[in-house]
């Protein structure tokens, strides 16, 4: 790893150098009913649109690599058969300007399933490989439990990572592309004072975490508490609306639909992200539903995140961003659910 320091005003120059590409970053989305600012990721056209001091975005950056709806193939049909057209929907590289560590780690986790598994997903790979990611440090918010999940700092999966030192950015450089890019702006090696300041910033940040999840022996505890009454209580609250999965940066479950066009000469195959909380998620041909109750579906989501995935990949599928709990109208949050299953109220 190479570390550099540059003055804050150099960041606009960095933006200009990258602006030949499509740039995605955090932007303001107005205020909520209590006057708190809202943010989301979107394509930006000007450096000033970026809200780099953003609090957590409502939605995750997932849709840029894993769209909610994606056409996998289109078909032209004729009396003799059909012709299939496949488009991976990758048209140009994407620059992510300002991604928090949790979201970088979320992409790394998606890679485990969608890029590094036996059958890599070409639609995902095409988009993922064409990302240039500039990470940025954050201030822990009340819903953040990333430290418990070990995802509060990103070790890989980005090109550059910026930490705000006041008037300057402390920069971690991970890739050759990023190194070449930084040679175009004025940077210096970190002085011992700047290094001390960086360490101090990290220390201050770690004091700010308030939400925690006890992950010790969690896979075993989930196994033991399969029949726990706690699941029924949460199931009773759950709206089965799928909001948690849609705002989650790592939920990747999906369904596929085939559709014949009105002219009967064209057809398409579309993938859409689904959620294991939805009532028809485990419904199979013939109408049988393996998980007809809200409690069984909610439990399934926690088992996938905190048990099944851990057994398969030795890490959780949750990055502790807390978006699901924030977005949930029924106030179902992972720290509370896991604590109740553990028997701690």
């Amino acid at each position, binding site marked *: 790893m190479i570390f550099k320091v540059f003055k804050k005003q150099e960041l606009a120059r960095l933006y200009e150098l990258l602006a030949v590409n499509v740039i995605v970053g955090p932007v303001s989305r107005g205020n909520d*009913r209590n006057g708190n600012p809202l943010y989301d990721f979107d394509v930006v056209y000007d450096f000033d649109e970026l809200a780099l001091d953003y609090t957590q975005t409502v939605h995750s950056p997932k849709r840029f690599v894993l769209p909610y709806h994606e056409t996998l193939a289109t078909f032209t049909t004729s009396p003799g058969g*059909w012709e299939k057209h496949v488009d991976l929907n990758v048209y140009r590289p994407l620059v992510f300007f300002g991604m928090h560590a949790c979201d970088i780690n979320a992409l790394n986790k998606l890679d485990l399933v969608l890029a590094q598994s036996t059958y890599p997903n070409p639609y995902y790979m095409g988009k993922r490989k064409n990302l240039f990611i500039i990470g940025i440090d954050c201030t822990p918010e009340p819903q953040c439990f990333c430290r418990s999940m070990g995802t509060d700092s990103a070790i890989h999966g980005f090109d550059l990572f910026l930490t705000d030192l006041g008037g300057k950015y402390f920069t971690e450089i991970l890739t050759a592309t990023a190194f070449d890019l930084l040679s175009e702006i004025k940077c210096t090696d970190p002085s011992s004072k700047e290094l001390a300041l960086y360490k101090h910033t990290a220390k201050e940040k770690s004091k700010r975490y308030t939400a925690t999840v006890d992950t010790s022996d969690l896979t075993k505890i989930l196994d033991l508490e399969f029949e726990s009454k706690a699941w029924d209580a949460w199931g009773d609250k759950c709206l089965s609306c799928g909001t948690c999965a849609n*705002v989650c940066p790592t939920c990747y479950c999906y369904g596929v639909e085939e559709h014949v066009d009105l002219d009967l000469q064209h057809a398409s195959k579309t993938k859409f*992200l689904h959620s294991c909380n*939805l009532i028809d998620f485990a419904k199979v041909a013939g109408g049988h539903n393996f998980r007809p109750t809200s409690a069984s579906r909610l439990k399934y989501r926690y088992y996938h995140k905190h048990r099944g995935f851990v057994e398969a990949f030795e890490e959780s599928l949750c990055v502790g961003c807390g978006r699901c709990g924030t977005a949930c*109208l029924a106030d179902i949050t992972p720290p509370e659910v896991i604590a109740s299953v553990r028997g701690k109220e």
Partner: protein
Amino acid sequence: MSEPLSYLGVPLARPKVGFFELSSCEGCQLQLLNNEATLLDFLNLVEIVNFREGMTERGDTYDIAFVEGSVTRKDEITRLTEIRKNAKILVALGSCACFGGVNQLKNRFRDLDWVKKEVYGDFPIETMEVHPLKDFVQVDLEIFGCPIKKEEVERIVTDLVVGKAVHHPEYPVCMECKANENICLFELGEPCLGPVTRAGCDSWCTSNRRGCWGCRGPAEGANLKRLEEIMHTYGFDREIILDRLECFGGFASFTQAAPTQDKKSPARRKKS
């Protein structure tokens, strides 16, 4: 008529289709006619023999009858029974046909004679309590929405013609709303029935920053009890949720369980 229909070389029957309306605004049928970009393809897929809003000719031989509107008069029962007799498949088109729709709002009043007087004054017409089609005849397929979503009807008709099963989403509007990257309207201070209403509209209203009024009726397993608590937490009183739940009649089974004092009396209505 045009060439015989076929898909992948397999010949398909071009169904004879009739569109009918009972008490309604006929807006659902208008939605179909409005879709100029695909209208010709739609007309090629079916043979329309009856469509008062779109053509002069009338025919009583049809395979599929799309019936818009709710039953509010006795003669409509006779007409509906006749349509049922003629059709192989009867489709309830839109929320009026499925649940009674906006028309059934009058069922909220205890005294229907008072309602009639308020609306028609000295020129009364014969009208009764509002009913969905299924109260009188067998309905084979329901297409929800006020109005219906034309893309959805086109998909359903295509599925019927090529012989695919017709599926409605069972989950609530929230799923589509979040996939459209909307910020939850509750967070913006507006009430919404999205968490309990059947999806399929592609979050039409909420994507335009209007809270859902539940025109498509309840999602499967809708958690009304929890939504009422959430409405309360967000500072919306019971009247607000009831107004929405009762608007299209889809939630009748939930609202009828409500205490009778919630049913508006004419006197109370006059005061407001």
